[in-house]
């Protein structure tokens, strides 16, 4: 249980302002601990009228739509004042993958240049190394990475350095004869100070929307509607109190 300061106790009873329905930033209450959260709510509202490239995908393919939503999510949350994306999972996958490819290439080249009988020990070593790396990749992406699409970090200064970390997983939900296929987001949020030693806030959220809410019949993604929804969910999880 995080220690509740006087300020936290005082502000927890206030109603946090949410973005107005027409998308304009909320009114700013007097500066206190809630100010950091209010600024984020302002950031989480999509910028109206911004010129953007159209995102068009094949709306018969659930995978394509899921990827388009994931990319829009990453773009939205990686904006300069919002989260900074942590690429660890991608980097591990790239490192293991390219290492295994290089080992395969080197083994193939060696086996081609050197006569068969002579090359056998080295080729055995190469093949075994490749198999081990491939198994490592599979285990990593199945158990550790799982459905995670975005891991972000944010540092703000509010009398002390506050670090926020958000992990987002997304799943496509299959369609039934009654409902269209959907997009299920699950977020985990942690706010801490003093380099992670003091827990200030924790939050979890899960929400699902059918793809029909964001894609029209041509397959164009309505980025504003999507970002409004994502901003709403993220804002709610960030407003969570310390447990």
């Amino acid at each position, binding site marked *: 249980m995080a220690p509740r300061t006087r300020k936290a106790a005082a502000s927890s009873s206030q109603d946090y302002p949410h973005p107005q329905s027409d998308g304009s930033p909320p009114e700013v209450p007097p500066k206190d601990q809630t100010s950091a959260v209010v600024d984020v709510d302002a950031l989480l509202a999509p910028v109206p009228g911004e010129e953007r*490239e159209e995102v068009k995908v094949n709306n018969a393919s659930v995978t394509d739509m899921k990827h388009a939503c994931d990319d829009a999510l990453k773009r939205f949350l990686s904006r300069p004042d919002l989260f900074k994306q942590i690429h660890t999972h991608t980097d591990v996958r*790239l490192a293991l993958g390219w290492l295994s*490819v290089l080992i395969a290439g080197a083994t193939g080249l060696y086996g081609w240049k050197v006569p068969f009988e002579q090359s*056998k020990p080295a080729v*055995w070593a190469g093949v075994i190394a490749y*198999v081990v790396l491939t198994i490592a990749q599979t285990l990593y992406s199945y158990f550790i990475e799982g459905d995670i699409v975005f891991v972000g970090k944010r540092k703000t200064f509010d009398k002390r350095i506050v670090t926020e970390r958000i992990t987002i997983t997304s799943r496509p939900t299959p369609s039934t004869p009654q409902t269209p296929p959907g997009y299920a987001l699950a977020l985990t949020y942690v706010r801490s100070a003093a380099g992670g030693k003091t827990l200030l806030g924790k939050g979890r959220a899960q929400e699902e929307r059918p793809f029909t809410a964001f894609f029209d019949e041509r397959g164009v993604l309505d980025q504003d509607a999507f970002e409004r929804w994502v901003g709403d969910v993220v804002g709610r999880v960030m407003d969570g109190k310390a447990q």
Partner: protein
Amino acid sequence: MFADELKTLRRLGVRHVLLQVLNFVSVLASGLMIWKGLGLVTNTESPIVVVLSGSMEPAFYRGDLLFLTNPTDARYQTGDITVYKIPGADIPIVHRVLETHDFPPNNKGAVAASPLVQKQYLLTKGDNNAIDDIELYQGLEWLERKHIVGKVRGFLPYVGYVTIAMNDFPQLKYALLGGLGLLALIQRE
């Protein structure tokens, strides 16, 4: 033609492009490793070969796929179908063993127990040929174990025509590779 996909690639950044290229390259790498692994397990440098000529008809026709092993602990016997390569010729030949001659090494009067230690000289002939293979040996009188790539264990008819087509028309090979590459770069799992 691929305007949408190119736009997506440009928007998604370096890491994404690296991931997509990795998709393609790892398909090739896994194919290569499966081939090399199979070669190690069967103890032959070329575990799967394609029949190019009609010299083994009616057993094997042109375009058949052959599966080879090279057992170190068994001697080759008359009647085995072997694939051998003469040093100096690039194409391996599939023919049947006609004669074998064993030379147990005479080590102070004792004969070695393991058949592997024994030297073997082989003479081969294609089933559909009138004469044996002496002419093909390019000066050698006998084939030795070291010239043999492997012994045929099984075969699949007709499948080898794909390889023959790709060898005779290299454009087909590049087209296939190019198509695979394009698919791997554009698709996302």
